[in-house]
């Protein structure tokens, strides 16, 4: 806790009973809605981008209500890296599988003809495993990175190469 006090972005936090209670009520719904948009994107409006953004915004909302410092300690850097890099890797992997069968990159119908998996599941895989974690991870990560800010004084000397 004490190391966070020097950073002005974190000390700007004021505890508010109203905001905390509201976020406590709204957060489960917004997270569920985000997940619904991801998992139901094939049959209703929504998609990985929208769902991921709303799921990511839920973490921002919690940080806004309960303080950025404690929330940043709670979200592991590893989790965000696995989500974003893993999302890119999963998207690419789903795209590369059709190439194993001699078809084009991201030629989803191959899943049906060669593997017996519905084409729909390939599209949902791209949305849920690819786009959604990338967007959710980057939205959350960007927020924490900007909150911690640029510490110029400690890096100034090292950048002289």
């Amino acid at each position, binding site marked *: 806790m004490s190391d966070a006090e020097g950073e002005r*972005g974190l000390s700007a936090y004021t505890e508010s009973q109203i905001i905390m209670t509201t976020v406590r009520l709204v957060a489960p719904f917004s997270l569920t809605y985000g997940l619904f948009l991801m998992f139901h*994107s*094939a*049959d*209703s*409006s*929504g*998609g*990985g*981008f*929208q769902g991921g*953004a*709303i799921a*990511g*915004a839920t973490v*921002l*909302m919690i940080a806004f209500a309960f303080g950025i410092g404690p929330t*940043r*300690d709670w*979200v*592991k*850097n590893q989790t*965000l890296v696995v989500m*974003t*890099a893993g*999302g*890119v890797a999963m*998207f*690419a992997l789903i*795209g590369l599988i059709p190439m194993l069968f001699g078809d084009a*990159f*991201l030629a*989803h119908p191959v899943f049906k003809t060669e593997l017996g998996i*519905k*084409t*729909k599941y390939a*599209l*949902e895989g*791209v*949305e849920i495993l*690819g*786009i959604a974690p*990338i*967007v959710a991870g*980057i*939205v*959350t*990560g*960007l*927020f*924490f*990175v*900007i*909150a*911690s*800010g*640029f*510490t110029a004084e400690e*890096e100034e000397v090292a*950048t002289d190469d």
Partner: protein
Amino acid sequence: MISAFGAVLFVFILVTALAAAVLRDILAVIIISGAYSLGMALFYAFLLAPDVAMTEAAIGAGVTTLLLLLTVTRTVRQDHNRAIERPNVPALLVCGGFLIVLLMTVAEFPVVGDPAIAWDNPAITQYYIDNAYKDTGVKNAVTAVLAGYRGFDTFGEAMVVFLAGMAALLVLKRGVFTNE
């Protein structure tokens, strides 16, 4: 022609956009931009584009406002003796001229929801409408186009989002998003 809701929404968007442009206090501008984005989100929903509306509400009104607020807490709040920015006459003339050109094109726009609209590319649009469900088994044609037919585009867009995060880490000279 225009419903009462649409008219109120239009006025709200116009007022918030103007206020964001002319006010001098940055904190006020950020809050008003958030309200503007929320108005735009409702406007997209009003134009039957729910996917865009959800993105605008989450990213435009939510995330962007928070990121700007975080940034402005690191600056010093200035005392302004004037609340409103004095207009820059050359800029006003250029923007005014551009507005007139844009407004002239509005008359050429088809009515929203008109079934007889000539599409930009009728053959391809009709192909998606006819074949999206048959080809992919996905009822939401937007998802079918984004993740299926134009999957390569979407892969590029996902990479852009990923690289934006990486670029922020590089620019801020940090190795981690949160604490290790």
